[in-house]
Each structure stands twice: as structure tokens, then as C-alpha cells.
């Protein structure tokens, strides 16, 4: 099927689709446990003798530690472990491998005496105690002396000559020849990425008009509602067992092995039900410390982050300052684009490569970018759903809307004119689908109202995954693998196995193994899951199907080619009397030469095709208060093939809200002294049901050849366009382009009042 197809379940699950098990909105396998409180998250675990782990954190953003004294904490009754840099081996460090496309990072576990703390909230020590209250008191009893250092908070200050250095050993990067940061060596540079295609100078010279704008977007926190939590236990022979909230329990195992120098086979990780991850749960934030405390305490230890700690010391999305220069022809074509970007990577690095997304899904002959990871006195950032895409798309797509506004071009038409085309991609169809749903061509707006449109591109990754599909004696089926289900993917996998084996989806059970038992499974990040595990499960189910057909052929004395597998039985074509049920075959298999029916499937990596999310929002701005209210929202996404349409819609709507709310209200704020200003949900506002209107969702299906049934990975792309669409809608409503997100009432009010004055 290559035609664009709009599917909208817009209602309850269990929509029938003939005898097919895919393409149906079935109820999630884990739904009953989640609506009854039975689903087990890591914080729900209680073990006999379990202790509680807690951290002592730096109250300063930049300081040198001159003394640490833990003696009073250690003397407190009920304290079972105290660890600091001094108690650990120097070859132990935090090693984290995030999604396949993200950088591998290394940092020390704790700063020792003589070392610097580089951000407010940095871990100095950890304790374990028999109660939370004692652990808290033990932390208070640790005495730390600091020599305060001036912090550097803003990336634009951090690159200047004479700036305070976050990493003392860093050397300046070469000066650029052009752009806003040209003319001097760049300081506090933690990484850089440069690309050039064509000749931008010639492109700008040949352009009819050239636009240049600088966009600023703050850090945002993923704000999964379940904070980072781990329980660890160490047996007397050194075997480490970990129960944790993670997107990838195999990644956690490998990170722990590398961080703590423990062989893989001595670590078993149980991935628990995950209360949201969005890129932040690949390990290294609490799990490593939890294992170290359990090793020392010789008792199980639980560490559950508080919400406050989440904001101080997790891995939020980096902020960025991105300057974009774009040349267009007189007839509305993109000719050249150039970007200069500073990504606020705090004490860490990684992310600036995402600047390439400024180019977008357009034919642009000339493109150049110079992008930098810049150190500041803030925690290192990490992945947040399509890492870097919302920030870069904010710059690239908002500027396209501004150019269209100034030139009198329709922003949808302009995009359609400039979009790339190709096999397995449906950029134009996807944008047209959302424009039709929003009635874009005939859109109306009243006073103080405005519309914004944007698209965001993404290509799912792929990773190694193994699966086993085996048959019970009653003909029903189980899947066994190492998939961490974040979004309902277990259910989709059951649908795939059911489809292959011609049985109802309800007859498939899914079992997630721990790392000791399951075949390897890649982490659930990078939109890899349905693409990668889907292929593995499909292959395993097909392997099982082959065994089923062999057994049936033997039993029915027919050739495999003459058999039909459907409705829970195998029948000889044209002879409905010659039939055998899967239940009979499941029994027969036990006594057969080949034994029980076990299908195996493995997948490593194959390329997918790029998809886009296209989104349109309408806002109303209160001219007295500057408050922006979203009144209408539309979105479309090329999903390749919707195996479970309701699940696809859930991903799209959830991602859309995260993107728009980053543009509307979300910002991690840091004071001049580098201290986090809004480390709680009262001050770091995420949207409630009241902040968003109903969402119109359109699924587009343009299959990719390597995905099971044509599936494209869809978890990440829906977050990409939201900031740009929201900011552009506010500009359409007010007539003022505000190039710094989010659109808080004070910012909108001051920008619109300034414009009128």
C-alpha cells in the first residue's frame, strides 16, 4: 500500500479489522495492571533489611572542595554505608551509553578533595541507612569545605576571552571566520561539529533576499512522573542484582560493568515497569551509586530520587542559541542556509550535531553549519525525545515562517514547494494531510488570534534484538525477549506474533526477561523498538509457523504448500475436512522428533526511511496579560504502517504536547550564581489538562521496506515541530516575532508593548 491513508480511531479500542491482528486498536496488555495499581514500579519494591540511599549535594555551582569529613555520619546508628570519592577506586567512573546516536560520556563518580564541583546539586557523597530519616540526618552530618569560584552560566559569556573555565584542562577552539561568534578563539568548548555542502557564500550572493535571526531556547526537563529509582542487592559472592526504572536494562548492565569494573555475568538487571523516560533513563544517575552502597552495606539498598533532585541533577535537554541565515529566491525557493550554534551542555558534552536539522526536509543546495557544545556550570544534559530536534527545528522552521510572513508567501505552500521527495518518504502528503484537517486554506482568525505551522523530521534508529516465540500445549503462544516496554510496544509485538500465526491477539502472552535470561535487546530509545523488535518477533513467529506447518504436513499427509494457517488451525486448501488445530499440534509437537515448537528471531540493524511530523496550532493572546492560550491543535505523522492506531495516536499527541509546552511554558532557570531557580513542579510548569485543547490527529501510512509491515519508528518525531509552531502562532497573533522561547506572559507582554511603543 503506497497511498496515503488517514486512520483515526477517535474512540475506543478493539476496532475490528477483519481477521487481521495488526492495524487494530487493541487494549494494551498492561492496562489492567495499570488501572488497578498492580503494576510494579521500582519504588514499589520492599525487601527484608532494605536500606535507603541518599545523596549529599553541592549547594554551589562552582567551587573547589577543600575538605570532606564523614566521621560523624558514619558514627550515626543506623547508617550502613557512606561513600565519597576517597572511598572509591580511581578507575571507577560513570560510563553511559545512551541511544545509538548519542555520545558516550564519562565522568567521575564524586569529586574528591582538591577537585571542583561544577554545578549546583552535584553529588559529593552518598549514604545508606535503615530509614530515610537516618539517611537524611547522616547527609547533614557530613562536613564539606568549599573554596568558592565564580560560575559561568550563559553560553554566550562562556565562549568569550577571559571567561571562567568549567573544565580547567579545556583548550580554546579556533576562531570562526564568519557569523556572530567570529573573530576570537572560543572558550569552554566541549565538542564541535562542522558541515558544509555547496557554497553558502555564492548561495547568499545569488539570493533575492537573505534573512538572519538568532533563536534562544532554554533547557527543558523530560519530567517523567516517576523519578529515577533503583534497588540493588549484592550477594556474598559478589553477584549484583539490580531492579531499576530504565529504558534499557542491557544498557544498564553494560554501563554498570564498565563503570564499576564488574564482569557482565556478575550483574543481573531487572527492568521494572517504567513511569516515563523520554530519553533520560539509560542509567548512570542513581543505579551506579545504588550498587556501590549495596556493596558496602551488604544489604539491599533503594535510591528514589525526589522531584527536587530530578531538576538539580538528572540529564535534561540542553538549551541552545542558534543563529540562522537563509537566502531565498524571488519565486519562493530556498537557496542557502547557514547556522551557528552554541549548545548549553553544562559540565558535559554532546548534542551540537543536531544543528544539522536546521536544514530541514528541504532541497537546499548550499548549507553550512558551525556548532559547539559549550560548558557552563550546570548539570550535563542528555537525551530528550528526538534529542536536539525541537531546538534546531525551532530555529529552522520559525525562520521559514518569518520569511513567508515578510514575503507574503503561504507557509504551507512554501514548504510543499521546497520539500525533498523520494522513495519511502511522504513529506508532502503528511503536511497536506494536516493542512486539510485544519482547513488551512480557509483558516479564520479573530482579534489577537494566530496560526502556526511547522514540520519536524526524524529517522528511526535500529538496534540488535532477539526474540523467542514458543507454543504452549494448548496452541496459545508466548513471546520471550528483553524489550523494555515504555509505550505499549509489548502489545504491538503480541499483535505481530498473532498476525503471523493466525491466532487472536488475546492468545499471545509476552514475557520480558531480565538480563540473565533474555536474549539481548537494544534500549528503547531512538524510536527503534517497533522497527527492531518487530522484525525479531516477526522472524521468530515465522520460524514457529514453519515448525507448525511441518508438523501439520506430516499429520495431514499433505505438502506444506497446500496448507493454510488461519483461525487457530491448519487446513488443507480446498479440503476443509483435512484440518488440525494449533492445540493439537502443540500437543503433537511434544512427542514429535523435533520436540516443542520454539521459533527464534534475531535482528541487527537495517536502515529505515525518514518521517515527518507536521503540526498546526492556533492561539489566542490576551493583550492585557500576555497570556497565550492554545485553542486548536492538529497533527499528522507518517507512521509507515499503524499496527495499533490508538497507540500511534497516543505517541503523537503526547509528543506534540511536550513540544508545544516547551514553546509555551517550560524552562529550567538558573540564577547568576548558577543555582537552579525552579527545582520543583510548582515553579517548573508542565502542562495540565487545562492548558491544552483537544487534538486532531491524522495518521499517514507510507511504508518503509525494512520495517515489519512497513513500520516506521514514531516515538520521537512528534516532539520536534511544536516549539516552532507555537512561537509562529504567537507572532501571527501579535505581529511580533519573539525569538526566545518559551512564550511566558511576561515575555509576550514586554515584546508586544515594546513593539507598540
Amino acid at each position: 500500500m503506497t497511498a496515503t491513508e488517514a486512520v483515526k480511531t477517535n474512540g475506543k479500542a478493539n476496532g475490528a479489522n477483519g481477521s487481521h491482528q495488526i492495524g487494530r486498536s487493541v487494549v494494551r496488555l498492561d492496562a489492567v495492571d495499570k488501572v488497578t495499581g498492580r503494576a510494579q514500579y521500582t519504588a514499589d519494591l520492599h525487601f527484608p533489611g532494605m536500606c535507603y540511599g541518599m545523596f549529599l549535594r553541592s549547594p554551589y555551582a562552582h567551587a573547589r572542595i577543600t575538605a570532606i569529613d564523614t566521621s560523624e555520619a558514619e558514627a550515626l546508628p543506623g547508617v550502613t554505608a557512606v561513600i565519597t570519592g576517597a572511598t572509591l577506586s580511581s578507575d571507577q567512573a560513570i560510563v553511559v551509553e545512551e541511544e545509538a546516536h548519542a555520545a558516550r560520556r564519562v565522568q567521575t563518580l564524586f569529586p574528591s578533595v582538591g577537585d571542583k564541583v561544577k554545578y549546583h546539586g552535584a553529588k559529593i557523597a552518598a549514604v545508606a541507612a535503615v530509614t530515610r530519616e537516618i539517611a537524611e540526618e547522616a547527609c547533614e552530618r557530613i562536613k564539606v569545605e568549599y573554596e568558592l569560584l565564580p560560575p559561568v552560566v550563559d553560553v554566550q559569556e562562556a565562549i568569550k576571552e577571559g571567561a571562567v573555565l568549567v573544565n580547567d584542562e579545556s583548550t580554546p577552539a579556533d576562531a570562526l571566520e564568519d557569523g556572530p561568534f567570529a573573530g576570537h578563539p572560543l572558550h569552554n568548548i566541549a565538542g564541535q561539529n562542522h558541515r558544509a555542502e555547496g557554497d553558502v557564500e555564492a548561495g547568499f550572493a545569488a539570493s533575492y533576499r537573505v534573512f538572519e535571526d538568532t533563536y534562544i531556547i532554554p533547557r527543558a526537563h523530560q519530567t517523567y512522573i516517576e523519578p529515577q529509582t533503583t534497588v540493588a542487592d549484592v550477594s556474598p559472592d559478589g553477584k549484583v542484582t539490580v531492579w531499576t526504572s530504565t529504558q534499557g536494562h542491557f544498557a544498564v548492565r553494560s554501563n554498570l560493568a564498565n563503570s564499576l569494573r564488574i564482569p557482565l555475568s556478575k550483574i543481573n538487571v531487572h527492568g521494572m515497569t517504567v513511569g516515563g523516560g523520554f530519553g533520560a533513563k539509560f542509567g548512570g544517575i542513581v543505579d551506579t551509586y545504588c550498587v556501590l552502597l549495596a556493596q558496602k552495606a551488604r544489604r539491599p539498598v533503594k535510591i528514589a530520587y525526589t522531584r527536587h533532585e530530578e531538576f538539580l541533577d538528572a540529564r535534561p535537554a540542553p538549551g541552545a542559541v542558534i543563529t540562522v541565515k537563509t537566502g531565498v529566491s524571488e519565486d519562493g525557493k530556498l537557496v542557502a542556509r547557514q547556522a551557528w550554534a552554541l549548545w548549553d551542555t553544562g559540565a558535559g558534552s554532546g548534542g551540537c550535531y543536531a544543528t544539522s536539522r536546521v536544514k530541514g526536509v528541504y532541497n537546499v543546495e548550499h548549507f553550512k553549519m558551525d556548532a559547539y557544545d559549550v560548558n557552563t556550570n550546570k548539570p550535563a544534559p542528555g537525551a530528550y525525545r528526538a534529542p536536539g530536534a525541537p531546538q534546531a527545528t525551532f530555529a529552522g522552521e520559525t525562520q521559514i515562517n518569518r520569511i513567508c510572513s515578510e514575503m507574503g508567501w503561504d507557509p504551507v505552500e512554501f514548504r510543499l514547494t521546497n520539500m525533498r521527495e523520494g522513495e519511502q518518504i511522504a513529506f508532502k502528503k503528511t503536511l497536506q494531510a494536516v493542512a486539510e484537517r485544519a482547513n488551512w486554506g480557509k483558516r479564520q482568525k479573530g482579534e489577537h488570534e494566530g496560526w502556526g505551522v511547522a514540520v519536524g523530521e526524524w529517522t528511526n534508529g535500529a538496534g540488535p534484538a532477539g526474540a523467542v516465540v514458543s507454543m504452549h500445549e494448548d496452541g496459545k503462544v508466548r513471546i520471550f525477549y528483553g524489550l523494555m516496554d515504555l509505550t505499549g510496544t509489548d502489545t504491538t509485538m503480541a499483535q505481530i506474533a498473532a498476525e503471523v500465526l493466525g491466532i487472536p491477539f488475546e492468545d499471545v502472552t509476552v514475557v520480558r526477561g531480565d538480563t540473565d535470561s533474555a536474549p539481548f535487546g537494544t534500549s528503547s530509545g531512538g524510536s527503534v523498538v517497533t522497527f527492531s523488535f518487530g522484525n525479531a518477533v516477526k522472524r521468530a513467529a515465522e520460524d514457529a509457523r514453519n515448525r507448525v506447518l511441518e508438523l501439520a504436513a506430516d499429520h495431514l499427509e499433505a505438502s506444506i504448500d497446500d496448507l493454510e494457517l488461519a483461525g487457530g488451525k491448519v487446513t488443507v486448501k480446498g479440503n476443509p475436512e483435512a484440518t488440525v488445530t494449533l492445540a493439537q499440534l502443540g500437543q503433537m509437537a511434544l512427542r514429535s522428533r523435533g520436540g516443542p515448537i520454539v521459533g527464534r528471531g534475531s535482528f541487527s540493524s537495517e536502515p529505515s526511511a525518514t518521517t515527518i511530523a507536521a503540526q498546526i496550532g492556533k492561539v489566542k493572546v490576551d493583550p492585557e496579560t500576555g497570556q497565550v492560550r492554545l485553542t486548536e491543535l492538529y497533527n499528522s505523522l507518517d507512521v509507515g504502517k499503524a499496527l495499533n492506531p490508538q497507540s500511534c495516536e497516543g505517541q503523537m499527541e503526547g509528543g506534540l504536547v511536550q513540544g508545544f509546552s516547551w514553546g509555551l511554558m517550560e524552562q529550567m532557570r538558573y540564577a547568576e550564581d548558577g543555582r537552579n531557580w525552579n527545582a520543583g513542579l510548582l515553579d517548573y510548569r508542565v502542562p495540565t489538562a487545562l492548558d491544552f485543547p483537544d487534538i486532531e490527529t491524522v495518521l499517514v501510512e507510507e511504508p518503509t521496506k525494512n520495517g515489519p509491515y512497513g513500520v516506521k519508528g514514531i516515538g520521537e518525531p512528534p516532539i520536534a515541530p511544536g516549539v516552532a509552531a507555537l512561537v509562529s502562532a504567537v507572532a501571527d497573533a501579535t505581529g511580533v516575532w519573539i525569538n526566545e522561547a518559551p512564550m511566558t506572559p511576561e515575555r509576550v507582554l514586554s515584546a508586544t508593548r515594546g513593539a507598540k511603543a
Partner: protein
Amino acid sequence: MRTLIELNVNNESYPIDVEGRTRLLDALRDKCLLTGAKEGCSTGDCGACTVHLDGQPVTSCLVLAASTVGHKIVTIEGVADGEELHPVQKAFMECGGLQCGICTPGMIMTSIAFLKENPSPTRDEIRDGLQGNICRCTGYDKIVDAVQAAALELDGKAGSKK
């Protein structure tokens, strides 16, 4: 100082020992071993720990356990009628009103109390009624669908009893 108190949770009696500062959320999770109420923020902002106190939804992270003696507490574990799920639970399942599930118990407790106050709400009223519960996965659309579907189901049942 620890004191023995007795909590009435889901119509059962739980004799537990608590300190004066013990929060209802901790009493439920650590002492009664009812872990359905979740801790998302500890400041009453996210609503994941919502339970009913004498029929009213409260964020149990802001309630002291000792203050609930003599009152009726209902948690997510107590809303189904035996094996029969509450219509709000069913609606969340069928409408896709949950993803990661961590906000779901609190969201359902708030929805049940809200629908008692307002049995036939508009979508805007539902959004208003759920504003104390944060969901980061769904974008809320399907949660509003679920509450609306549950309202129709409950209203139908109420009607048939008349």
C-alpha cells in the same frame, strides 16, 4: 516517637505504627503495602498520590497519616467491585487513557470523585476537573475521552436504576 494507629483503608482495618510526621502516602505504601498511590513530586503538584479521604480526593503526600484516623480512605486498590472493574478504570483501558501508567491511579481517583460531583461534564469541565493531575505521556486528549466515556456509562447505569 512511634505511635500505633488504625487506618480504615478500602473498608479494611490496618493497625500500623507511625511517627507524627509520617505522611499518609508513606503509611499506605510502606506500612499497609498498598503501593498503588505513587510519589511523583512530594509537594502536591502532580497528583500521582491522589486517594479519597471520606470521598474527597486528596494528595496523600500532603496529609499526615495520624490525622486520618477515624476517616475512610479509599485507594486505587479499592475502587473495583470484586472482579468487576470500575467503569472509570475500564474507560481508561479502552480509550487509551494511559501509557506509562504512573499517573493513572491518581488520575482515576480524581476522575471518580469528579464524576460524582459532575455526572455529565463537558470536555472543558473534565479538563478543569483534572487540572491537579499531571500526565506527561498522553497529551491528555485520550484521558478526557476516557472520563467522557465513563460519564456516559455511569450516567446510563444511574438512568437504568431509576
